[in-house]
């Protein structure tokens, strides 16, 4: 271990499409013990499962090769271990790929794949008797393509014990990716829920990367942030008593202050008294924050009660197709012409599409209202979207919008059309005993 009295954990990516360079800055200049890359949103794994079905050596994050190739030399040089959920639907093949990249770079490392989150077989076998949490319908109602349980820190801890340098997982609860090195390095007891809760607070603050350092924050008026083009991603100095200091690499853009940390602490929290992960039900209401220096916020307090009785799994299913079309109007009467266009589309498509909506971009496409703001935009973009049962049916939406060029109101320009297959997600609870996470080690 590099640091004796604390552990420095950085987060270099907060979603699958996140920037490449902030992680490199962290790995090169952050003096990190651990780098975490969180790259798995709810639906990402269902899309990865589709790629795995087409090619069984795929199904991990499509950016894995680029990220790992750019990071490995820095990680090895600075003795920083990497934990990432870029395994997506295929952690084993991801680990093989990482080992191969290391070999090509003449780097000797141990790569661990964590498996066990994929519960597709169990879910398919029991689809008639398991109901989803959202609609309380039997899972057999859905055309299921993936099922992955959010597993906890346990197997990552085990992989660290086996001296893995890089650990690649599928679905693991985001804060657990950060909690695992704390448990391992500080020797936290897995039943010390107070410490697990404190560690989860810090994990939660880090997991969205740039969102705690000034991204998704700046408004240019009341909340001015410099250097968003070179936004630094965060790291935490974590102490064995569960306290932490959130910061970022000196010289990077962005800001870490009480405001950014408060916003991120409450981000996506359903109940701040009971923030549920597979490791612990954490309490965020007792967290205390203090700005101790420029870009350094100290986290203390927080805690936890128990381990939840079940795992939660996300079940991906084929939902429907969407067809979309857009066209713009400008100048005098722009909104009126966009409304005429919308009326035409409604008349021509409504009978065939059960769910069809029209939005006026630039007027009120986001909130169904403009509150007290007058709507006098110089230009308006009409957007039409509908659900369809096939790609062919979905295509009709964009075709109808495009046909407004010659058949609709005056001055319609910039028509675009899109078709997408939609994977929906529902959740289900799964007994802990049914899931057996495992570690598999690969050497380069």
């Amino acid at each position: 271990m590099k640091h004796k009295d604390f552990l420095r954990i950085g987060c270099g990516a907060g979603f699958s499409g996140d920037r490449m360079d902030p992680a490199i800055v962290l790995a090169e200049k952050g003096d990190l013990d651990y780098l975490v890359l969180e790259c798995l949103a709810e639906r990402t794994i269902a899309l990865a499962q589709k790629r795995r079905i087409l090619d069984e050596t795929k199904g991990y994050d499509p950016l894995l090769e680029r990220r790992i190739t750019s990071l490995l030399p820095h990680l090895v040089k600075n003795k920083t271990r990497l934990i990432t959920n870029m395994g997506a639907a295929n952690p084993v093949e991801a680990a093989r790929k990482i080992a191969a990249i290391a070999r090509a770079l003449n780097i000797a490392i141990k790569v661990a794949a964590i498996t066990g989150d994929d519960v597709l077989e169990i879910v398919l076998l029991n689809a008639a008797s398991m109901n989803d949490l959202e609609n309380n319908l039997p899972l057999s109602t859905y055309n299921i393509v993936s099922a992955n349980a959010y597993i906890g820190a346990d197997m990552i801890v085990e992989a660290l014990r086996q001296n893995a340098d890089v650990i690649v997982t599928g679905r693991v609860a985001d804060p657990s990716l950060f909690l695992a090195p704390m448990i391992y390095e500080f020797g936290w007891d897995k039943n010390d829920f107070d410490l697990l809760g404190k560690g989860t607070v810090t994990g939660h603050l880090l997991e969205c990367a740039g969102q705690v350092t000034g991204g998704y924050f700046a408004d240019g008026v009341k909340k001015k942030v410099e250097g968003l083009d070179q936004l630094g991603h965060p790291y935490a100095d974590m102490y064995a008593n569960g306290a932490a200091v959130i910061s970022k690499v000196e010289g990077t853009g962005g800001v870490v202050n009480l405001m950014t940390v408060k916003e991120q602490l409450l981000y996506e929290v359903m109940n701040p008294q009971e923030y549920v992960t597979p490791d612990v039900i954490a309490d965020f209401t007792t967290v205390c924050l203090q700005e101790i220096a420029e870009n350094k916020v100290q986290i203390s307090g927080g805690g936890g009660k128990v381990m939840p009785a079940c795992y939660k799994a996300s079940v991906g299913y084929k939902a429907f197709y969407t067809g979309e079309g857009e066209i713009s109007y400008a100048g005098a009467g722009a909104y009126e012409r966009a409304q005429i266009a919308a009326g035409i589309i409604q008349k021509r498509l409504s009978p065939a599409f059960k769910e069809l909506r029209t939005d006026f971009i630039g007027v009120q496409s986001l909130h169904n209202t403009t509150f007290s703001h007058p709507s006098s935009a110089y230009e308006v973009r009409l957007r039409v979207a509908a659900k369809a049962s096939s790609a062919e049916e979905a295509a009709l939406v964009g075709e109808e919008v495009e046909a407004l060029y010659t058949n609709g109101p005056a001055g319609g320009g910039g028509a675009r059309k899109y078709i997408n297959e939609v994977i929906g997600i529902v959740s289900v609870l799964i007994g802990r005993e049914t899931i057996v996470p495992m570690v598999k080690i690969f050497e380069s």
Partner: protein
Amino acid sequence: MKLFEVAHSRAGDKGNTLMLSLIPYDEANYEMLCATVTAARVKEHLQAIVKGTVTRYELPNISSLLFVCSNALSGGVTTSLAMDTHGKSISFALLEMEI
């Protein structure tokens, strides 16, 4: 005066549930926000968006409020036809509230 003048907010989502934090720039305004921005007022203000309930959590340690709004995202990010499927822009709808 709009909430925007005294507080900031971040939107989050889980399925069809929308969460909105409300954080005063000056911690001295926390009590005023607690008294003024009730769950009922948020429900009324966001009636065009939130079709379900609004639950308010108070976090005095960090002088912040959290509003958890059910049935607020046209079914949720994966199956919604809305422009902003996550509801990420809705924090600024909350800040439009007159206080």
